[in-house]
């Protein structure tokens, strides 16, 4: 069982789900083109990769944004849902995420990381803005709420995660599993909870210096472990 408000760990239902999804690897394109916009006659086409879609978007092709949205909205939605948990706000933030991608498509640099990561970073940033503007950090404690349950239930029946994303997720989960629980908690509260170190200190009752140390050590360890995911963009 995944503990609410915590990163799911390997060996959980989430982990088994990933394993099941990864064997065997799908033989078809990991990015099925669900939009008819780029294939108006219904013929078989290879979907443009994400970086190409961004270039098309930068050139004013809104249909390219539609394809990017079709491809990545489940991941963006998942991140935002994990942070906000209010469906109206989630919908708004998902829209704003892709809208920002549309507006800033021309600024995307492939050598700075993959489009997916770029999108998710935007999503988290917009969700943080919303979270803080709603001033809900102190009012709605994360402990015991149902956010993770929502994510997990949806994930069980979701066919959208491609092999590459699954592999990334597995690596990140394994890296997190190697961290001491208190470091993982600090990361969780900071990343998805949107809490500052002071707020985490308040929330957990631990001294601020302790929280700082936990977060710093956790990030250093993760940095080393996640080097394997060094991104080159696409």
């Amino acid at each position: 069982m995944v503990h609410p408000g915590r990163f799911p760990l390997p060996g959980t239902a989430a982990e088994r789900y990933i394993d099941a999804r990864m064997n065997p690897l799908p033989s078809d394109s990991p990015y099925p083109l669900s939009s008819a916009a780029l294939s108006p006659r219904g013929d078989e086409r290879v979907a443009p990769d994400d970086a190409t879609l961004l270039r098309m978007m930068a050139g004013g092709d809104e249909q390219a944004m539609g394809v990017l949205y079709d491809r990545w909205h489940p991941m963006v939605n998942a991140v935002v849902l994990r942070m906000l948990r209010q469906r109206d706000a989630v919908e708004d933030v998902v829209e704003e995420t892709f809208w920002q991608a549309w507006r800033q498509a021309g600024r995307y640099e492939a050598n700075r990381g993959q489009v997916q990561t770029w999108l998710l970073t935007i999503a988290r940033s917009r969700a943080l803005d919303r979270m803080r503007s709603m001033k809900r950090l102190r009012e709605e404690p994360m402990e015991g709420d149902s956010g993770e349950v929502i994510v997990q239930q949806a994930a069980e029946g979701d066919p959208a995660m491609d092999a590459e994303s699954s592999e990334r997720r597995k690596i990140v989960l394994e890296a997190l599993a190697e961290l001491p629980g208190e470091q993982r908690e600090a990361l969780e509260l900071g990343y998805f909870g949107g809490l500052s170190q002071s707020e985490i200190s308040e929330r957990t009752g631990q001294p601020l210096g302790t929280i700082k140390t936990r977060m710093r050590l956790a990030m250093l360890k993760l940095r080393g472990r996640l080097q394997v995911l060094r991104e080159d963009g696409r």
Partner: protein
Amino acid sequence: MINGMTHEEAREALGALALDALDASERAAVLAHVADCSSCRDELMAMRETAAKLAYVVSPVPMADEQRDRVRARLLARASLERSAPPVQTPTTPMFAQVTPASPVRILEPSHVPRNTPHRSTPSVPPLVLRPTVVPHDAAIIAMHRMEARSRWMAAAAVVVAVGSVWALMNTREERDDMKVQLQLATVEARADGKVMDSLRAGLTARDRMIANLTGPEVAVVTLAANSPRSPSARMFWDQSVGAWTFVAHNLPQPRNGRTYQLWLVTTGGKVSAGLFSPNGSGDAVVKATYPLARDALAAVAVTDEPTEGSPQPTTTPVLVGTTRAR
């Protein structure tokens, strides 16, 4: 030591900075250090890459079909509008304030509309009840176009504002948000007189209304398509909750001399004209109208090439046509 923080102190905080987990004062101090320290900049970039990967711990959660389609339609509508619109407007610029010769505004007033036109004889088609969508500032500019804009062809029309220049679309959320910020600033600083405040509020209200008409939960979207060398395209946004219609077209060729485009709502009770329009130099056009119509009464939206004064019924094969499947 730079800016009150040692290199070591700043470096230890980079992970938290990458997670956006620093308090404001500490964040400012670390950023000040990073600005002058290339090694910390590199380290911060690496930390940010690391933090970004934490998003992968969630597994995808597709939105419900209706929600997914709604967001998608809104995004495409906004992109379509922005693609057509010129660069950022100043927030206080009133709607429809700039109308170029290539984008005439045409207003049909009820006093000039014959009461016994063919459309009026179709009882099952309710009369068009159209509202002007201009803010007070635009009255003078709109008035300049009224003399050339009057027409007698359309049944039961009250007011139609057809704006070829998509500059008039102006209702992006960015503008709305900018205006909100301006309004807040003006309020807080108490340096705006009543006129400025009223102007901001009026503009904000108009933009909110436009956004609602394009993106509301009850907005149906009809995509119109055509076959021609320039591939004109269009979308009609029908806010069913208030009967607001916003038609946006691209790549329309200029009509020949003495001709214009006419927009039609093809309803179960007949074809209702929704306005005359001409595209601007880029082939873009926007028509806004208000017309209450039962949700299941719309069969299609079409655009035909008609004489300048318009026609009571379509007289040519549609240049663009779209049926009402998309929602």
